[in-house]
């Protein structure tokens, strides 16, 4: 079924139109799940966050006012749920350092593709929360600068600063590993 606009699809979904509901899920669930997985580094927790995000969306739909793009709003909800979980993790393990994932890259010959990807994923997961979120939204999910900044509720200048620090950290970790291997 074709919808005339996002608002049309949202209005129909709010009324329980199965095609509109399925359309919203198909369109946005991968992005939400991906963001949550990168932030939490835990697939089961990321699925819980995705479900909670959509539950909140279904509740919000009947009174939906298009002040922000639905996608932006949805990702912001997911991100805030991730921040909550990360905060609780830190509170429940006071003073305990998180496990340091192996983010070093060995020489090309010694590593297969899976290991290289895994090292990069671990390095991203080890970034500070907001840097990880900024990098995921911009570099992995392809959100526009404006949308990523809106999701993170920061300016584009602040987004640029987060991205620069994230990339600098990744570059140092990944290349340092390669040099020392």
């Amino acid at each position: 079924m074709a919808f005339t606009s996002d608002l049309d699809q949202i209005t129909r979904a709010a009324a329980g139109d199965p095609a509109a509901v399925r359309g919203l899920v198909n369109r946005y669930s991968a992005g939400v799940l991906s963001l949550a997985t990168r932030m939490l580094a835990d697939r089961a927790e990321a699925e819980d966050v995705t479900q909670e995000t959509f539950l909140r969306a279904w509740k919000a739909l009947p009174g939906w006012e298009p002040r922000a793009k639905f996608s932006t709003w949805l990702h912001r909800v997911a991100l805030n749920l991730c921040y909550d979980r990360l905060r609780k993790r830190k509170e429940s393990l006071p003073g305990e350092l998180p496990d340091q994932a192996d983010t070093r890259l060995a020489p090309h010959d010694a590593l297969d593709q899976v290991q290289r990807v895994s090292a990069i994923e671990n390095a991203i997961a080890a970034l500070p929360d907001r840097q990880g979120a900024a990098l995921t939204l911009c570099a992995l999910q392809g959100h526009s600068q404006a949308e990523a900044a809106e999701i993170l509720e920061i300016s584009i200048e602040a987004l640029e600063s987060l991205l620069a620090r994230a990339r600098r950290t990744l570059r140092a970790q990944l290349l340092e590993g390669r040099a020392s291997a």
Partner: protein
Amino acid sequence: MTDDRLIELIEAWGADPDAFPEAERAGAKAVLATRLERFAAALAEARALDAAFARIPEILPSAALTEALIASAPRPKVALGGFRLPKFASWAPASGFAALAAGLFMGVMVAPAASAASDTDEAATVLEHALGFDPAAFTEELDE
């Protein structure tokens, strides 16, 4: 566009100038077109990271998660398809309440009385037996 600013852009947004903020894109491209070698090292490092990101597989929801998300959505409102309830239906609930009230009234007012009568009969029978009085024999005597 200064050289330092262009380095900052490459370090934040990657090697592709199309990913730079729109307002600075044209200026950055112009500088790169004239002095590419000046930024070759920064571009190479950024390109390596961009390539690493591109290798990361997309995360897709399982069919089970998709169905769970759909199942958690609002249910469609039930349409009656033009069927109209008869007019009396509007006061049918009221009549139900009236019947319930009448039943409660009868229960409260009549049941204790009936129960009391039943209790009286039973008490009389016990007393008659206790005194050795036989109601059946008494009835026969009256008939004679």
